[in-house]
């Protein structure tokens, strides 16, 4: 039945390329307009308008920002380790995109006789009649988020500047502390689902008209995961790395033009990824009314949930002042980690008796 490369039909590779392009373009456009949406939403929440002059109501602002950053002078400090300096923004940015490889954004659609599941790293096995994806999907995601820490550490270290180093160290300490609590919050999810495969997790949340979503069964884990994820991506109220850039310095002081733009794109791309993860693990992914019947409705629900969560991130940014570093570490280790562990114990006990 046509050409087979490595035992899989050619259509599989074409479909995978298509899915990669769609996901990549979606994340890029969302990142670009998330900057604009954030400025407008935070502006209105603070009883002021956001950008208004660039285009109608400021809609060309991201393009103007991109052009400005593109034309800025590229400065590399002489004593900086050049290779690490150049590669650090990439290491911060790429894992955010890589995580999208396992997130299911829809059910299975049928194109030219082949069934294609709307998840990049998966395929529909015709002999077994079901979708196979990475069966350690959640582990892959945790690994990718750990990679993001390297970008920050390298940026601080390679800049060869005392303030950048301190900023980078503090930021990476923050990220690894909160990664723990996030991981432990996810453990309670797979105590319920019994599988690490994201496709199965979404499938298990598809019953009972929305009340099967894990946010109803594990509200504490959802709350903890969302907060820890906000801290992971250096977002207010945990954004000391950014704030220090404004006040004194931070890990990205020595960066100019496109590399600086990449760090900030990395922040927003991470935000999209984290919201997509929360939507998949806790809000039922692409599930919604009649999502299984009409396969193209799945991505719509998924995108709606991701945008809703991004709105909540921006809402939190507009409201809260930022944490001091010691308050932040105390929160991560003394409050959130014990709560996450308590959640696992309670889930285990309740799960044993029910």
């Amino acid at each position, binding site marked *: 039945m046509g050409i087979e490369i490595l035992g899989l039909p050619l259509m599989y590779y074409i479909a995978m390329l298509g899915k990669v392009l769609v996901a990549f373009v979606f994340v890029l456009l969302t990142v670009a307009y998330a900057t604009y949406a954030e400025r407008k939403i935070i502006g*209105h*929440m603070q009883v*002021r*308008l956001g950008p208004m002059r660039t285009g109608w109501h400021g809609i060309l602002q991201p393009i103007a920002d991109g052009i400005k950053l593109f034309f800025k002078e590229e400065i590399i400090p002489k004593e900086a380790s050049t290779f690490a300096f150049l590669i650090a923004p990439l290491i911060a940015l790429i894992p955010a995109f890589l995580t999208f490889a396992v997130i299911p954004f829809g059910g299975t659609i049928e194109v030219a006789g082949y069934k294609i599941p709307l998840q990049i790293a998966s395929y529909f096995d015709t002999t077994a009649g079901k979708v196979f994806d990475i069966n350690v999907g959640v582990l892959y995601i945790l690994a990718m988020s750990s990679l993001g820490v390297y970008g920050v550490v390298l940026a601080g270290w390679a800049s060869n500047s005392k303030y950048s180093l301190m900023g980078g160290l503090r930021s990476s300490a923050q990220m690894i502390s909160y990664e723990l609590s996030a991981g432990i919050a996810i453990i309670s999810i797979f105590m319920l689902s019994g599988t690490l495969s994201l496709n199965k997790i979404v499938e298990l949340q598809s019953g009972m008209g929305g009340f099967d979503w894990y946010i109803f069964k594990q509200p504490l884990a959802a709350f903890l995961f969302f907060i820890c994820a906000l801290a992971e991506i250096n977002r207010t109220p945990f954004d000391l790395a950014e704030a220090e850039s404004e006040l004194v310095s931070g890990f990205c002081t020595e960066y100019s033009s496109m590399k600086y733009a990449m760090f900030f794109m990395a922040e927003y791309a991470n935000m999209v990824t984290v919201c997509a993860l929360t939507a998949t693990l806790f809000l039922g992914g692409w599930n919604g009314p009649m999502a299984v019947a009409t396969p193209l409705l799945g991505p719509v629900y998924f995108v709606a949930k991701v945008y809703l969560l991004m709105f909540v991130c921006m809402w939190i940014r507009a409201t809260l002042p930022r944490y001091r570093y010691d308050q932040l570490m105390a929160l991560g280790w003394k409050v959130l980690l014990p709560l996450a562990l308590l959640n696992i114990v309670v889930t285990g006990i309740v799960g044993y008796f029910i």
Partner: protein
Amino acid sequence: MNPITPIINGLKITLSHLFKKPVTLQYPDERPDVAERFRGLHGLKVSHSKAKCVACYLCPTVCPAKCITVEAGEDSNHDKYAARYEIDMLRCIFCGYCVEACPVDALKMTGEFELANYRRRDFVFTKDRLLEKK
């Protein structure tokens, strides 16, 4: 002290702000309405087609920024008048003391605040520029 309730209250407030009309004034398309007693550019009042100022030197005396320059002269009716009256807007602090000090009510402050200019010497407003246009 419950740490969660203040955060929730704050979030409620910001959400309610999202639905209010912003208070921003889109300058330069919309100009602000200044109050009646707004202290902007000075204006020399006229009566019977000449300035009321009698060059009594009270306004340069009271000015905290020493920005007013007055030189008296004698006009055709042998009355004292201000032959030279200049206010340096770069020094002026717009406090209004000169208006309060004037005994003949010859000086007032208008609502004009858009005083930007290109050359330093254009900021020294001479009598002809300060005179009210009737």
